[in-house]
Each structure stands twice: as structure tokens, then as C-alpha cells.
């Protein structure tokens, strides 16, 4: 708070009409500087104080002369420590006006956090669990596009991205997201072991939907050189392979997001039976707009919006991952039966979170 001082203060007195160079030269050898305003309209004093502080003046800075209580916070934020009150000035008005605002947008000489800094802190500290709970209530009975819209509401201040395998059913969610905000970042895990058809489908779909920020994420070269130099880790340890190619790169790629939209659906796997539209995993909000969709819903959406199909679907691939761990399924077989077929594995791990992965 700006100190209010009665009576004439000691210290070198300079008018705010003094050229900056002279004020600076004088300040170099002074512990107390009194800047005198000849008219309250003459705002040079605010710039003089700001420049002195920015150039390292650490002494005491006192405003004097014709200044108004309404300028208290301007003086304080420009670097003045105190004001020398005119005879008869109302110290209460000075105190009141100094505290008229609880925050300021722009950074200034004073150290109090700005609105911009406080916004940032608020968004980091936000209780995501409470947010997820509230959003789950709000979107109850709402459609997938409405869930996506809720997640992208700028008022939430979320940094939202999505992950997509550009697989058999991916087009539906990407289409919904693209309609709401086509510049939403889309992370694609480039494991190096995708089917060629997946790669060409990715290009085709990106263009068709107008997605402007598709990010390809590759495994860390150093890690790969240690763990899987011959690209055959999947034969001996599929979990380690998923970890190297999906879980770790995804963690790096999504470090900037605090909310991720996924295409997971309850029906897909036993681990997903209780899936809600919004949930929190490792401090990140997961948004699952398609949680209550089944394969017919996806099919209906793809047909209705005439979306391009993954080329492998007609060959019987209903859930598509990397080529070594994906096979086509027979009629009547579960769609995900073709993933890690013959292994005791239903998830690659990117949707499990740290706690489950360690168990």
C-alpha cells in the first residue's frame, strides 16, 4: 500500500518536468527522491518512476505536489513508495482509492500478481475432479457433439487436445471435433509399425475434415536404441513395446494439455464398462464423448455424414492398431478380439494411468 506522509519530506526534490537523463543522474547518488507533480494531469511522473525502477533505482521514491487520491494506485504500481500529502488532504480517501481495485491486468513495477498470472495459477490449481463431476451432471443425456462443445468452452480455460489412432472408427469423433474446432490438436502415435493403409487414411481424413493441427509423435530415438533396436520387441514383450511406442511418447506429447478427448466406448472392453463422459486420470481431464456409443452408432454416424472409411475395414479389421498385434476378426467375433490376439492383453496402457500400469 502507498504510504501517506504528512509534512514536507527530506530528500532531493525534482519536478516531474525534469528531463529523464537529469532525474536518472541525480538518482544515482540519492537514497530518497521526491518527485513533485506541478499538475495532477501531468503524468510524466509515472513514467519517470517506472523507468527509474526498471533501471535499478532502489532508493525511496516519494510523490509530492498536485496529485489526487484517485492516482494512488497508479503511483504505487509505477514504483512510488509514498505520497507527501498536501495540507488538508483526506488520508482516508487516499487509502480507499489505493485499494479500489482487487487486481490489475498489466505487469507493473510492483510485485503483486497480475490478473494474467492469477488466471494461470487458477487454471493449474483447478480442481479437475470437481469440474469432471459438474460436467458429467451438465451433459447428462446430451449428445456427443454437445459433450465436445462443453469441453471446448473457452470459459473453462482448458488446454484441450485429442488422441487418435486413425483407426476403423476414428472418423466419427474426429468429425465431431473438427466441426466444433478444427484447430484442436490431434495427436497420432507414429509407432513406426502402423499399416500403410492407416498412414494413407490419416492423410485422407486430415484433409477431408480440415484438421489443421495433427501432430505425429514418434518414440524417443534413444529409448528405442536401447530397448528395441531390431523393431521386434512386440514378439517378446508386447507391454514393453506399447510402453516404448505409445505410453511414453503420448505422455511427452500431451504434457501441454490438461484435457484430452478420447474415442473410448463402454462396450469396447471390460476395463471400460463404467466409463463416464468426463473423468480425471493423472491430473488430466479425459473427455469421452462416445462413452455410450456402440458400433452401430458409429456406423450410423459414418454413413450419415458420408465419411471416408479405413481401407482395412472391408477386409475384416474392426479395431486397428500396429500391424504386428492386429488381425482381422471373423463375423460375430468382438471387434477388439483382433487386438493382441492370443495374449492376455486388452489395452495398450495409454488409457490406464500410472497407478494401474504399475499394479
Amino acid at each position: 500500500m502507498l504510504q501517506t506522509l504528512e509534512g514536507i519530506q527530506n530528500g532531493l526534490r525534482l519536478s516531474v518536468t525534469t528531463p529523464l537523463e537529469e532525474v536518472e543522474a541525480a538518482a544515482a547518488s540519492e537514497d530518497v527522491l521526491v518527485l513533485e507533480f506541478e499538475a495532477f494531469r501531468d503524468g510524466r511522473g509515472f513514467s519517470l518512476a517506472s523507468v527509474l525502477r526498471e533501471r535499478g533505482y532502489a532508493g525511496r521514491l516519494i510523490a509530492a505536489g498536485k496529485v489526487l487520491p484517485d492516482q494512488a494506485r497508479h503511483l504505487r504500481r509505477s514504483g512510488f513508495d509514498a505520497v507527501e500529502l498536501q495540507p488538508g488532504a483526506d488520508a482516508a480517501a487516499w487509502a480507499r482509492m489505493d485499494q479500489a481495485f482487487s487486481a490489475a491486468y498489466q505487469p507493473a513495477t510492483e510485485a503483486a500478481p497480475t490478473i494474467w498470472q492469477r488466471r494461470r495459477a487458477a487454471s493449474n490449481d483447478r480442481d479437475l475432479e470437481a469440474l469432471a463431476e459438474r460436467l458429467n451432471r451438465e451433459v447428462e443425456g446430451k449428445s456427443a457433439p454437445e459433450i465436445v462443445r462443453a469441453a471446448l468452452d473457452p470459459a473453462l480455460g482448458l488446454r484441450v487436445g485429442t488422441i487418435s489412432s486413425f483407426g476403423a472408427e476414428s472418423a466419427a469423433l474426429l468429425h465431431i471435433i473438427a466441426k466444433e474446432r478444427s484447430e484442436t490438436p490431434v495427436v497420432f502415435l507414429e509407432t513406426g509399425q502402423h499399416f500403410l493403409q492407416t498412414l494413407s487414411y490419416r492423410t485422407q481424413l486430415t484433409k477431408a475434415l480440415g484438421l489443421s493441427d495433427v501432430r505425429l509423435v514418434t518414440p524417443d530415438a534413444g529409448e528405442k536404441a536401447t530397448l528395441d533396436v531390431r523393431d521386434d520387441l512386440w514378439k517378446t514383450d508386447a507391454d514393453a513395446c506399447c510402453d516404448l511406442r505409445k505410453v511414453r511418447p503420448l505422455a511427452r506429447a500431451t504434457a501441454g494439455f490438461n484435457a484430452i478427448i478420447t474415442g473410448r466406448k463402454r462396450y469396447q472392453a471390460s476395463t471400460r464398462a463404467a466409463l463416464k463422459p468426463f473423468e480425471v486420470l493423472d491430473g488430466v481431464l479425459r473427455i469421452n464423448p462416445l462413452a455410450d456409443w456402440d458400433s452401430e452408432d458409429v456406423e450410423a454416424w459414418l454413413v450419415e455424414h458420408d465419411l471416408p472409411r479405413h481401407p482395412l475395414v472391408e477386409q475384416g479389421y474392426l479395431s486397428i492398431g500396429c500391424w504386428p498385434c492386429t488381425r482381422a476378426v471373423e463375423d460375430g467375433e468382438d471387434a477388439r478380439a483382433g487386438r493382441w490376439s492370443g495374449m492376455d492383453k486388452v489395452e495398450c496402457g495409454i488409457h490406464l494411468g500410472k497407478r494401474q500400469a504399475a499394479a
Partner: protein
Amino acid sequence: MYRYDEFDHALVRERVEEFSDQVARRASGALTEDEFKPLRLMNGVYLQLHAYMLRVAVPYGTMSSRQMRKLGHIARTYDKGYGHFTTRTNIQYNWPALTDLPAILRDLAEVEMHAIQTSGNCIRNTTTDVFAGAADDEIEDPRPWCEIIRQWSTIHPEFSFLPRKFKIAVVGAEKDRAAIRTHDVGLQIVRAADGGTAFRVFVGGGQGRLPHIAQEIAAAVPAADLLAYLTAILRAWNLLGRRDNIHKARIKILVASIGIDAFREEVDRHYATLRREDLKIPADELVRIQAYFAPPPFEDLPKASAPFDRALLADPDFARFARNNVRRHRQAGYASVVISLKPIGGVPGDITADQMDVAADLAERYSFDEIRAAYEQNLVLPHVKLDDVPALWRALHEAGLATANADLVTDVIACPGLDYCSLANARSIPVAQALSTRLADLDYQEKLGPVRINMSGCINACGHHHVGHIGVLGVDRKGEEYYQITVGGSPDEQAALGDIVGKSLPSEEVAPAIQRTLDRYLEIRTDGERFIDTVRRVGPDPFRDAIYETLDAANA
């Protein structure tokens, strides 16, 4: 569009309380009128000829339907049922009672609006291209940057008591639709060598008694350093600008007197010692703000629209509206629609409360709930499906808002003049009305093509007469209202000040003289040549002759 969070709400609320405290201290005598005046001005409250005037900020001209309805409500409840849009995309109420002001400000706060810094010697409302986010030639939407400047400049501790007012305008395209070179600082978004966003910066533009076109001070300031660079400019001027003469206090005078190169050195010196890191725009704040301005969910539509094309053929009045008031859009199947506030014989920029409600309803129905105020004192619905334009036109027509004259000769920009303003020497509204009535024939107007006429009631140039293709300035000649004519001014990327053609005319002579000017243009133009291009080619002489020929004949 931007929406307030808890911090924005709190700041506007606290501002209303602060102003109430100031009003109370004025009433008790604790503040003198001299001390109170700049404080009320910084809250948009003027004392005019007949009453107080309240100028409400429309930040970068963007409004929601809800906000527009509230503006209508204020016009109806506290004023005489109308408001006036200005060249700086604000709205003015001419008749509010002083005692109603706190209630009006609270009403505004409800819809995230205010009157902060719409006047006074501080950084004013930042303006931009009315087609921002819709134009097909845009490098980047300038509105997020305008919002950042709005926040940064609001109640700025260092820059609230400047030598004079300070106006910033931003455009995101090469084409300048916001007259940036007539501003204290004009910003044009450009691509930096590394592909990032940067700003080409112009400084020292301004109109008034001593008009100047802004000069380039920096070719490409990186976007993250924008606020640091603006701080350096304002600081240099705040310390060096004149404070002894109100007419010589604007930054344009400083830049002109020491020269752009010396001023640049001064700015660079401050820039070098600024704590630039503090002033860097936080990346997450930029992302947060940009998210508010994401394009609305457009439909995938073909370029052509059958309903639109059918209406063109079926109705010549619609076809005329489509030719003159409908603008290209970046999204196939969409257009921006200009709602002219220049009905023939009307008051430029005025709109009734009922019309505000209609505009709000139509924006909600046809333009993603968004409505813009234009530099030209018109409104724009930025994102209208071509399919919907015929229905929109019919609705505008019923409300008296379908005048098909956008950018034509009767789309006159004019200040309120002596009918309202205590500074004016002459009236501008009746002269604009007489001109509009005289040139009402739309066939004639279309034959003329784009001609911009600007009128100011005094040398302060609120009607931007210096940069009108034809400018009209009201002057006081021994107690009589006279009007000085200029030709050849231009507010765009080829900004120029008009040439004064000769001695001033009495008010009844203005419209006939301008018509003779336009007729002369029709005689001497080459194929497809716009009025301003003809003036640039042949100079002002033929027009001077046309303006004074009958007068000279009468005097002969």
C-alpha cells in the same frame, strides 16, 4: 467472442464503485470540477451542449445479441429511444441524466460492457477491421490481439494521464479497413521471417487541427513483444510530448517535430531497458483469449446458393442490396452483410432502440449471435449463410435497415456536430441529410461507385473529413456556419489527406457543389476508374472548377 471471467467482472464492478466514490466526492466539494473532469471523461461521461453524453465502449466493435439488446434497453429507458454509433465503433447516448449514470453502468456491467477509457487522455478503445475473422484476405484474426491490448491498457498505471488521448487500431490484412494510418499507433499483422506472427507498426497518425498520416516505425515486431514495444512508444511520448498546448500534445506532433528516425531511436532506447520478459504476453493467456475467437461452427456449403441466386433474379431491390451491402466471406456459402445506418435523409450512425432489438434478433438467428460496429458508422452481421440473405434482407427492410448504399456516396460519415457537441462550429447532420436527400437516386449512386464523403462540424475532425474522398469541414465565419471542401483524402493503405479546394461555402451550397463534383467525375473518368483514382490521376483542379463554377458565374 470474448467472455468475462471472474477477474474481468470484478474489475468492471470495482470501476463502477470507484466512479460512484468520485461522484460523491465531487458532490461534497472534495473534488473540484477541474479535478473531476478527467475522471468522469475516463468513464465516458462528457458534458455536451444540452446534456451529458455517455460514450459506451464496444471493444473492437464486436457485440453479442444480448449486448445489443441491452444497448437498446438503455436507449429506451434512460435516453430518448436511440443511440449513435461513432467512427471508433463506440455508441453514444446523448440525453442521459447524470443521476442515471451509475444505473446505466451497472446495466452495462451485466452484459460485460463498460464506458472505461472511451474519453480522456488515456489509451482509448482499440478498433479493428469490421470483417475480422470473416474476410477472405486475412493473415490472422486481429481481435485476440485487440482484446490483449484492451486488457493491458485498462487502468494502466503509467499511461492514464498522458499528454493527450491515444488511439490504437489493428488490422490483420494488407487491405486496411480500419484506417490504421490515421491513428496514434496503427498495427498491421504480418508474417515474420520465421513464419510467426509479427506487427508492422505505424506511429504518429491523427486528424484534428494538424492532421498527419502515420509513418512506419517498425517493419515486424514479434507478436510476443507487442506490449513491450507499445510501452516503449507510449513512454517516449509521455516523457517528451508537449503538455503546454492541447493542439500540439498528440504523438503526431512529437513524431513530426523530431522526425520519425529520431523518434524511433528514442523508442529503441526505452525498449532496450524495459523489463521485456515481464511484458511478454503469456503463451497460455494468448491461447486462452484466441480460443474465444475460434471460427463459429460453419456448415460445409457449396460456393453458390440457389435461394440467393433465385432472389437476385426475382427482386431487383434485393439484387441491389446484394451488390452493395453483401461482402465476400472466407467460408464458402457464407457472406458478411452490412446494415447501413445511413437511410436517405437520416442521421448518420443513429439507430433506434427498436432497430437495435431487430439487429440483435437477426444476429442471433442468422449470424452466430454476433454483430459488429463498423468504422463507417454502420453495423455488420459477419457470418450469414448466403441461403439466409434473402430472408435477412426482408427482415431488415421491414425495420428500415435495408438501405442498399454501403460505401456509396450517401454512406456519409459524420460527427454529431453543433446539434449536440459543445466543440462544434457548425452543424454537420443537416448538411449530411441534405446531401443524402439530393443524391438519393440509387441508380445514380451505383453509377458513381464507391465514394466516401466525411463531414466534421469542427476542426477536431471527428467525422474524419481529412481522409474523406470528399471532405466537408464546418467553420465559423463571423457567426455564420460555412463549410470547407477537400478532395482526394483516403483512410486506407494508400492513406492521404485531402486538398482544400478553395474558400468555404454556405450550408445550402454544399450539396449542389458536391453533386457538381461528382458529375465532373462522371465526365472525366476512364473505364472502371473509381472516384478516388480519378482524383489521384488528375488532381483537384477539375473538381475545384466544378465546385466554384456557378458561384464564379454569379460573382462575375
